[in-house]
């Protein structure tokens, strides 16, 4: 398979090199006849300089652009997140992924699930409040309508909010002004079949809207020995977004509804369903920018055959104001309040007590960015967060950025963040038959990190840019499993008895080799030094915090070949997992696309091409992920 993939790459490269050009003009029409929104979509034949406009912030931000997503041919958000070198995305089943940044990605064997990221879709928080993890099967959006995904590795608590301990993933969809027209997309392959459709239009002079629907079926992965894992699933989703604008005010209303059916080995199906409605008002004044956002969100899961499940309702309102004071100060302040109500249908051996609860999460924050000189900015921020289990907590943040010259900028940061306790930490009861095996801890404290970062971005020439960030994170009160003091063992309970530090580097580069070929290498190295506090049992060892590879890397190649052919490939390497042990692996995704005309594009994509099947988490924690190939047609009408 390796040869099958690389041969066309080489052949296409040789052909393009012989030509000496790779023209990629995407329009033959009169540019002056185009609307602003259409002009925004016209592709330039050659880009003189990599854009850094969205990456100026003093933080390790990697931006996955609309173009990256569309060209890679990925069909889900977790697969798109593999394009960010500062994230580790691990597929464990047909519908489940573990997403982590900078280590401590959890260890399912020890019931510690990746829980230190904040993930937002258009400002709506989508990590689950039940255990702070991410249900990847609830993350779908219309990928054609994604403007960009910002992936911030490191602490982002002050501005971004709760749970932004090791990173923030911010998925931003396009304004309805930019998605006018009809778009239809369909694909079929050995692992999945899907179809998407979107229609967008103007509504009067100042408004625009779009509606979309998507559906897919993804086949089961494999167990050891190659038998089917029985975890195929199907999903349908629909939604809309409307944007109104009048002078300095804009109003956005958007919503989605989805329902998925997920099979299991025993033949019983589980159901995942949910919906949300988001309203956002922005006032762009001369001295102040006000944003008010409110949303409601419902997320529900019904276990196989109706056993076990939950329903969570989230009601959230945030107000944020940005004020420019004089020439030097830019102040952002705001406040937010979130109400979660949940109900859980307990399983026989996994119970939440109580099964129903309402939790509130509030915050107030202020941040001032001071321009000390035209090249040096200092950002001071403080958020105070009020969670229902541990009360008010200060989350301070200090950032310094220095534009050394036109080509090099450097930044440094020190910040504190927490992972607030969740019902899984405080309310869960696990049984083995009639015996209570684990009783959660109502006194569970927040997990805490003090993070120190140093980063540099350089544009060394017109065609090469580089970003490097070094981090040193000091953790305290990480979750452990402790024996009952009275009985000496059962029931176990969750303690806060692990501490230690991690350090490492995230680095990535963009290299525009020619006007038709770009290479983007990236890698993350993490070293973890964890230990137990005095008096801790040490049960399950420090590995429970994360079965993390010490390094992972990716190399993305994007080629614009003549005759509107694009060739994109992502080679990714993930280092060995220490325990449970899994050897390192390398995998390749590749897509060749041919834009026949302005309206029609055909493509063929292969995922996980180097192995017929491979594990990303060891057997028991994950299934074998299989090689897949898919053919796709996209129509823009």
């Amino acid at each position, binding site marked *: 398979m390796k040869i099958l993939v690389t041969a066309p790459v080489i052949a296409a490269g040789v*052909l*393009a090199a012989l030509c000496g050009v790779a*023209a990629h003009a995407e329009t033959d029409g009169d540019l002056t006849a185009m609307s602003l929104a259409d002009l*925004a979509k016209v592709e330039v034949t050659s880009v003189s300089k990599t854009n850094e*406009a969205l990456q*100026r912030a003093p933080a390790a931000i990697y931006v996955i652009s609309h173009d990256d997503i569309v060209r890679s041919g990925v069909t889900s958000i977790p697969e798109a997140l593999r394009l960010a070198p500062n994230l580790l995305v691990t597929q464990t089943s047909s519908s489940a992924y573990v997403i982590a940044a900078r280590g401590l990605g959890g260890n399912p064997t020890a019931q510690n699930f990746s829980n230190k990221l904040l993930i937002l879709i258009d400002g709506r928080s989508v990590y689950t409040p039940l255990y702070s993890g991410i249900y990847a099967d609830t993350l779908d959006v219309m990928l054609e309508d994604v403007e960009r995904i910002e992936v911030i590795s490191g602490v982002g608590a002050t*501005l971004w909010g709760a749970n932004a301990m090791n990173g923030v993933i911010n998925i931003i969809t396009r304004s309805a002004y930019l998605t006018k027209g009809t778009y239809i997309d369909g694909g079929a392959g050995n692992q999945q079949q899907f179809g998407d459709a979107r229609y967008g239009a103007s509504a009067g002079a100042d408004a625009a809207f779009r509606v979309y629907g998507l559906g897919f079926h993804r086949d089961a992965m494999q167990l050891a020995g190659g038998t089917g894992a029985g975890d195929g699933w199907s999903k349908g989703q629909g939604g809309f977004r409307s944007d109104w604008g009048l002078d300095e005010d804009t109003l956005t209303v958007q919503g989605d509804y989805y329902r998925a059916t997920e099979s299991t080995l025993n033949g019983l199906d589980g159901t995942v369903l949910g919906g949300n409605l988001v309203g956002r008002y922005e006032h762009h004044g001369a001295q102040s920018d006000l944003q008010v956002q409110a949303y409601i969100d419902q997320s529900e899961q019904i276990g196989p055959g109706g056993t076990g499940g939950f329903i969570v309702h989230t009601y959230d309102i945030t107000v944020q104001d940005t004020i420019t004071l004089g020439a030097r100060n830019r102040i952002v302040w705001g406040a937010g309040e979130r109400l979660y109500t949940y109900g859980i249908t307990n399983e026989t051996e996994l119970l939440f007590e109580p099964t129903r609860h309402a939790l509130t999460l509030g915050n107030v924050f202020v941040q001032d960015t001071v321009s000390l000189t035209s090249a040096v900015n200092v950002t001071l921020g403080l958020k105070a967060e009020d969670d229902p289990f541990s009360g008010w907590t200060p989350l301070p943040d200090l950032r310094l950025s220095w534009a050394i010259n036109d080509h090099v900028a450097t930044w440094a940061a020190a910040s504190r963040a927490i992972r607030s306790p969740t019902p899984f930490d405080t309310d869960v009861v696990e049984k083995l038959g009639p015996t209570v095996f684990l009783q959660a801890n109502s006194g569970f404290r927040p997990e805490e990190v003090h993070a120190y970062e140093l980063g540099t971005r350089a544009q060394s020439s017109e065609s090469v840019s580089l970003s490097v960030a070094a981090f040193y994170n000091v953790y305290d009160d990480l979750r452990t499993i402790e024996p009952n003091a009275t009985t000496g063992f059962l029931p176990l309970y969750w303690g806060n008895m692990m501490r230690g530090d991690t350090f490492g580097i995230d680095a990535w580069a963009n290299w525009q080799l020619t006007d038709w070929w770009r290479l983007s290498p990236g890698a993350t190295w993490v070293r973890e030094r964890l230990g137990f506090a005095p008096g801790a049992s040490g049960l399950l060892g420090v590995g429970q915090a994360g079965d993390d590879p010490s390094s992972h890397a990716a190399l993305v190649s994007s080629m614009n070949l003549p005759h509107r052919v694009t060739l994109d490939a992502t080679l990714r390497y993930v280092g060995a997992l220490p325990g449970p042990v899994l050897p390192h692996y390398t995998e390749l995704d590749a897509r060749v696309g041919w834009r026949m005309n302005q309206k029609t594009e055909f493509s063929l994509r292969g995922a996980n091409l180097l192995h017929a099947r491979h594990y990303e988490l060891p057997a028991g924690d994950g299934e074998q992920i299989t090689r897949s190939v898919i053919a796709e047609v996209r129509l823009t009408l």
Partner: protein
Amino acid sequence: MFSKGAWLGLFGLVVHGICAAATPISEDSIRAAYLYRFAGYVTWPQTLPADAPLIIDVMDSPGMARELRRILPAHPINGRSAQVREISSLQELGRPRIVYVAAGHARMLRELRPEDAAAMLLVSAEEDGLSDGSVINFVTVDRNVRFEVSLPAAQRWGLKVSADLLGVAVRVQGAHPR
């Protein structure tokens, strides 16, 4: 069986076919089209006399001036003929409605002040053009030319910017703390 020569001939034909490429589109041609369009989304505090042309001063960008001169004769702006003037310093600035400042002139952007000139739409292509005082700054995202807008700068120059323009902007300055 084909001979080696026939294979080479066939390969040559394929290469020749692939090399017949379409006309390239430059960043300047897209920026010029935007510039032509922007005037429809911006309101200036003073109206121009009925027969006066709309003047666009272009600082240090022959490519942009060439593109504008190519498209403007056939495409009046808001029903008014437009004139392009190429300038290389602040002193040469006339009384333009629109000024385009090519990359590499951040200092000039910072020196342009509303109190020294009539209201004009200041458009730039600088890495951090909005911080340098520009109202609209072109940025290149992937292979698309996009733009960002500063409302404080628009207000300083007495300009009103329509919401449609803001809707397409990749960033509206001040709107989000990033």
